[in-house]
């Protein structure tokens, strides 16, 4: 049988990889890809907690479903912002999008 620790370690690793992507990538779309990885790591955690705690209580799965909705909303708005910025400033490099700095 697989102990819970395997799932938790995997999701921690996936979360860290996603975080690396968010911090290190230049392209704004790639940063959003990293965020997707992090959200998936969260979902793996939620579902494995559901299974390893008490499968009759559905809270973990309901949480995962809500995370899907949040991920969809996040991606829709995030990519819309990227496209809008690209149209105005012709760049998708996050470092060059510094209008709010000043």
């Amino acid at each position, binding site marked *: 049988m697989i102990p819970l620790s*395997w799932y938790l370690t995997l999701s*921690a690793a996936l979360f860290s990889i996603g975080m690396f992507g968010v911090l290190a990538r230049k392209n704004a779309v790639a940063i959003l890809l990293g965020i*997707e990885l992090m959200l998936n790591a969260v*979902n793996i955690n939620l579902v494995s907690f559901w299974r390893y705690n008490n499968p009759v209580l559905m809270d973990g799965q309901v949480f995962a479903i809500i995370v*899907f909705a949040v991920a969809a*909303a996040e991606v829709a708005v995030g990519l819309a912002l990227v496209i809008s910025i690209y149209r105005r400033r012709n760049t998708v490099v996050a470092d060059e999008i510094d209008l709010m700095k000043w």
Partner: protein
Amino acid sequence: MTAAQIIFLITAAVILGSAFMVVTTKNLVHAALWLIVTLFGAAVLFATLNAGFIAVVQVVIYIGAIAILFIFAVMLTRRSMTDTGPGLNRGWWLSAAIALLTFGGLVWLVSGWGGFTKAAPAYPSGFDAVAALAHALVSPEAFVLPFEVASVLLLAALVGAVYIAFQRKGEE
């Protein structure tokens, strides 16, 4: 080693390998395709965890909609087929260090918790998780409010995103 463990290890290797490709590959379309592999691997994990509904929804929403949206966005925001340039920041090693620290910290934190290595309780025989989930989401004494609020959240996202991305006439 049981069969379940072997399947888990293969899936985990695929997930982590493709996730690594997502964050390092220069070509963004490839990155999006690798993301699809990662998402599919996560769906396999959900299926092995008996969460059939989550597994299928993962494929429908993440692969069928979100990944497609990513590919469309990549196509819209590029100057040519080959323009990729350096994919990573100059300070990427710092990011790598932070990510490694996060991983170590997270594992250290949860390994101190009592339930870290516990085995799964026996799955109640004859229990239909999909029906139970359906009931939990809709019945008034469970999660009906989050269920309805989620649709409001999506409405807000739709209105906001469409407004931002929409190209008004005369602009460019």
